[in-house]
């Protein structure tokens, strides 16, 4: 079903250098993300993950300038040829800092902001605001001010304000970095549900793989501006090399790697504790 459609996002030999910077933040990045995919991008700090996110909706290079080489194509549109406001209808972008990306006085107006920019009629705006509030489960926050919400709630508002524009791709740049475990999980659950329910392609940057890797259909590991590997999370992560570049492996995988070294056959590398334990349960458990 997925493969018949044209890819959601393609990076072709993308290199990028910020203005006044000496080093390239992205180096010949090639990436292909299919429609409906849940792609997780990871890598040590400073590997170029955030830069990559800003390329997808054209903020780079349109707003940032700098040296841009190669091509980013989103649903058939080359980002170089379309302004950010046009790409914004295709790609929603959620930022790491929950509070700074919310600049309106109420949640409702926050969600309406993008729709107002598009000049949609009032009834349409209202309907879409309500739809987004429901999808994110934040209808009770409608008239609240963003600054009085918790970090998790703020991120949901930010996601809602993107989803209201009905994007085909949702990009989230470390959305849970500032959140506690419970809020982080509830934000990730909501993103996962949107991916399944609406079929929106998700591209999410995250350090803490133990929280997210089992949800991902594709994992992209970046290192020093390059894509090191990409593929199904189990396959990509089952490698000592990932650990060496400073990416924290989920403990079940780490243990599986150690087991494999000692001759324990591992067919499907485990991402979750229960998957690891099943290796020795040998079917008798169920």
């Amino acid at each position, binding site marked *: 079903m997925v493969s018949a459609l044209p890819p959601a996002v393609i990076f072709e030999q993308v290199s990028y250098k910020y203005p006044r910077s000496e080093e390239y933040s992205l180096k010949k990045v090639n990436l292909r993300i299919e429609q409906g995919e849940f792609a997780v991008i990871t890598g040590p700090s400073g590997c170029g993950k955030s830069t990559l996110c*800003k390329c997808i909706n054209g903020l780079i290079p349109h707003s940032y300038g700098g040296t841009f080489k190669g091509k980013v194509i989103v649903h058939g549109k080359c980002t170089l040829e379309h302004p950010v406001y046009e790409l914004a209808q295709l790609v929603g972008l959620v930022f790491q800092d929950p509070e700074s990306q919310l600049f309106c006085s109420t949640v409702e107006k926050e969600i309406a902001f993008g729709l107002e920019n598009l000049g949609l009629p009032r009834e349409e705006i209202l309907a879409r605001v309500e739809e987004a509030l429901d999808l994110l489960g934040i209808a009770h926050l409608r008239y609240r001010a963003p600054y009085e919400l918790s970090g998790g709630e703020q991120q949901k508002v930010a996601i809602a304000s993107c989803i209201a524009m009905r994007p085909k791709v949702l990009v989230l740049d470390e959305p849970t970095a500032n959140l506690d475990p419970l809020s982080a999980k509830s934000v990730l659950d909501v993103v996962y549900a949107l991916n399944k329910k609406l079929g929106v392609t998700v591209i999410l940057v995250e350090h803490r793989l133990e929280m997210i890797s089992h949800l991902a259909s594709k994992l992209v590991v970046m290192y020093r501006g390059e894509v090191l590997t990409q593929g199904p999370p189990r396959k990509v992560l089952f490698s000592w090399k990932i650990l060496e570049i400073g990416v924290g492996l989920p403990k079940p995988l780490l243990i599986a790697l150690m087991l494999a070294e000692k001759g324990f056959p591992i067919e499907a590398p485990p991402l979750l504790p229960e998957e690891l334990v099943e290796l020795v349960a040998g079917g008798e458990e169920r």
Partner: protein
Amino acid sequence: MRVFEGLYYVKRNTAMHRLDPRAKLVYVLCITILSTAVFHTALPMIMLFISVIPLAVEGRVLRRLLSTLRGGAMLAAFIFIFNFIGRLWNIGFVSPSSPEFLEALMPSLAMALRFLTLIATFSIFFLTTSPDDFAQALVQMRLPYDYALTFTMAMRFIPTLAREAQIVADAQKSRGLELEKGGFMQRIRNYIPILVPLIVSSFRRAETIADAMESRAFGASKKRSFLYMLRFKLSDTLFSAICIAITAAIIWLRLSSFLPP
């Protein structure tokens, strides 16, 4: 800082709050004209000042208004003293019982009262008008949306900035900064470690805000639509008409010399 309290919207549901900001602006304009261009003496100023009170009572913001005025009183006193001394200087210091003394006193008093009247009027406007409605009114009065947005955003980030200032102060105090230490100049310098991080992080925030706005199609359409439009209701028309009528009548009475200057 008290003066600024009078600029901070108080959420209530009163007739004053429900009035269209544009209608309230008509009122503000009327009082401004009357107190600056039409009248110049103390007595009418007192009358104008008193006329503000019922609106404050209706809007249930009297207490906030009073605290604003208390803040403004200092400044009013300054205005009064400077004016008064200035005038006495010109006429040569005269005995308090002479008519010239009174001639110097009364206009100075009028100046101070004019100031208070204006503060009270503007304060009522801002106390009963949400920044959003005010911005929307500006947009509907053909002010470019960008300016209105800048205003609402500034208001939106005041609490954030205040919270951040507290954190920065705490962080620096934890590194041994003592704000009250040293002479006058030193004390001013003590604030640098608080101001710099605040300014720098505001710049960082501004970048994120700009990115977030663009990412939500800011500038997409020449014809931006609005979830909420202000409607000039019958009550707004009535209120504005009454304000204008009374103002016109007062001006006419003044021009026909039925009223003192």
